[in-house]
């Protein structure tokens, strides 16, 4: 049985930004999402992520929390503060796994939370859901 996300679907018009300070993690996310033909960009830190957003507003951000400098929570806070970027769907991908961190992430304004190590099925279904939400909003 083929998972529903495996069905070909054209997401090429959607812009996705993956943020993580560890390059290997970015590579992994890239490879996992490769079946969807997103416009996928990566940022290796908080500031780089904000720069990328300013350059081009993404539809979805996959965001790591523990990063040197501006961390994930701060990135969320700044994006939500700005009306221009307040509506971006944000999914946290973090090794932080305590209940407090999850709650904190949602309180900051995240739309979903995925724990590392990333289970691919979970990531993909989550991303599909987020895309559907984006599509629904667009209509």
């Amino acid at each position, binding site marked *: 049985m083929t998972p529903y996300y495996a069905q070909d679907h054209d997401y090429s018009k959607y812009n996705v930004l993956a943020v993580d300070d560890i390059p290997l993690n970015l590579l992994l996310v890239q490879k996992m999402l490769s079946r969807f033909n997103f416009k996928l960009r990566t940022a290796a830190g908080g500031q780089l992520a904000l720069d990328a957003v300013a350059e081009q507003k993404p539809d979805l951000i996959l965001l790591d929390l523990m990063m*040197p400098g501006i961390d994930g929570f701060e990135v969320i806070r700044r994006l939500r503060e700005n009306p221009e970027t307040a509506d971006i769907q944000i999914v946290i991908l973090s090794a932080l796994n305590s209940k407090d961190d999850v709650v904190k992430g949602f309180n900051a304004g995240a739309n979903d939370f995925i724990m590392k190590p990333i289970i691919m099925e979970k990531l993909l279904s989550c991303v599909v859901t987020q895309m559907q939400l984006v599509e629904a909003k667009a209509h």
Partner: protein
Amino acid sequence: MRKFFSSLACLLVAFLPLAAQSNPYEIDDDCYIYFQQAEASFEDFTSDEFDQNASALQLAALETGDDKALTLYYVLMLKRACAAGRQGDRGELQSANKKVEAARKTLQVVAQEKGFIQYYYYGYDLAQAYYFNTNQSSSAMALLDEMYEIAKSEQDDYGQWQALRFISRLHLEQGDALNARSYLRRGLEIFEKTKDPSLRRQSMTRMYCDMADTYSIADDSARLFYNRALQSSKVHLDTLRCVYYGALVAAYDGDQEAYRRNRDYCLEDPSFDTLYQTGDELFLCMDMILRGDAPSRELLDKLQQSKQQDYVGRLSGKKGLYEVAYYMIYKRFMQLLRNLSKVNESRLDEYTGRYDNFSLSRQLQQKDRETVRLYRLAAILLSVILLSALLFSFVHIRHLRKDRKKDEERIEALKVADAAKTRFVQNMSHEVRTPLNAIVGFSQLLTLPDGSFPQEEKDEFAEHIVNNTKMLTMLLDDILNTSAMDSGNYRISYEEGEVHFICRAAISSAEHRLQPGVQMVYEPDSEIPFTFQTDPRRVQQILINLLTNACKHTPSGTIKLTSSVREHQGRVTFAVTDTGPGIPPEQAEVIFERFTKLNEFVQGTGLGLSICRDIAGRMGAKVYLDTSYKGGGARFVFEVPVVPPTENM
């Protein structure tokens, strides 16, 4: 016989002046003058004059060292106390008694000390007289009993005699002739047997007179003792007594001439009135009775002494004046009865008073004692409680302080340890999840159906998996090493090791951790192989740790490993130098603590350096940050002894 008595009496009268002595006490003449003056002023014993005379006597006695005069001074003091007590109110009797007792005891102490034992007994005499005159005959009797017992136990004839004399007189005054006689007899026996000169000197006249008084005037025994009294009479008053007695006997016997002579002698003597009260009236009565006239009731009523009443009764009976005789006998009987009841009453009073006093004082004493006991108990209890409370609180406070300090220290230490542990667990979670993320993630990509990724990409994924698994293994090794070192299970095993070989092996193990574009080089100061006794695996482990550490912190430049056998004597010196951000000198020691990471976002458990130091310590080696290194970046130095420390062999 009767004539003999009468003439003897006359003879004695002629010698009367001789009986008076100039200084009968044989004390210092000056003292005697003061004594006489004091005696003369004693009539008003509350006066200043008496006080002055008495004080003068005391001073003179002390100055001249005349102990007898001093004793006499105390006699005067006792006399004064007695006289004052006699004059005082009956309500103040108890306090008067106390004063008399105090004065008596003072006198007796002085008398005993100075050796005038007769004054010791004289103290009793005066005191008992005081008691008798204040209607405390029982006290008087008790005092005399005490005196007699003391004298008896001391085998003091004089004292015994005196006591017996006073006791008998006491009985006599109460009209108890029989008891008086038995005491007098004992007194006389003692006198007759004694060799005590002070007793021998005493006049027995009074005693014989008293003895005669215990008999009725008609009795031969009375005459016998009167005779003896006359014989032993030495002093003026004794003679007067005898003459008076002689008059009574002569009248009774009908010897008018002797009677008149003796009567006249008595009446002319100025001391007679004081010696025999109502003596004048007695002679008046006798004169009338001898004439055959009945004296008036008025006159008869004036005779108060029971002895006189008895005598008048008997004399009038003999002369046929039966009415007078009956009246006198009746009167005497009634008076005796009155006296008896009075004596009993006073005794009752006295006993009641004494009992009240006694029981009251006993109650008071008991109460006092109880109170004192209670107070003492309370005081002891209180002090014990206070003391223990004090001790307890002191100890407790100290304990608390210590405890609190200890607790605070402990809590602080625990807090620090807990914070470190929490950080470690959080960190661990992150550290473990990062390689795990790669392993799990790339594994999932590999399991995707063929054609998802080209083969070369799949190989790359596999390589990521292997590398991250190695990282995870190292991580686990670190934790296990730490735990093993903590539990003491970490062993060092020595064997031969070669410096260059160890260094190259370490580099090949750490190389894959290099960040892109960073070089890792080995620069020995000599290419000559150097072999030494050590644990090569541990040395290699430390070097790998140091190199890995450098890799993490060096984004660009070169990581250099050096070795030298010359830099430090007897040691192989390894050094790892990087071109990273460097470490501030003040952090040089902190970085070797467990769970310490200067940069939270650099991967690692924070255990690496602490493990290095632990292992080095066990090998007798040293790992430290070279704080003097100025090349930019950090330089870690690792010195290993060429000869292993003996304790670890």
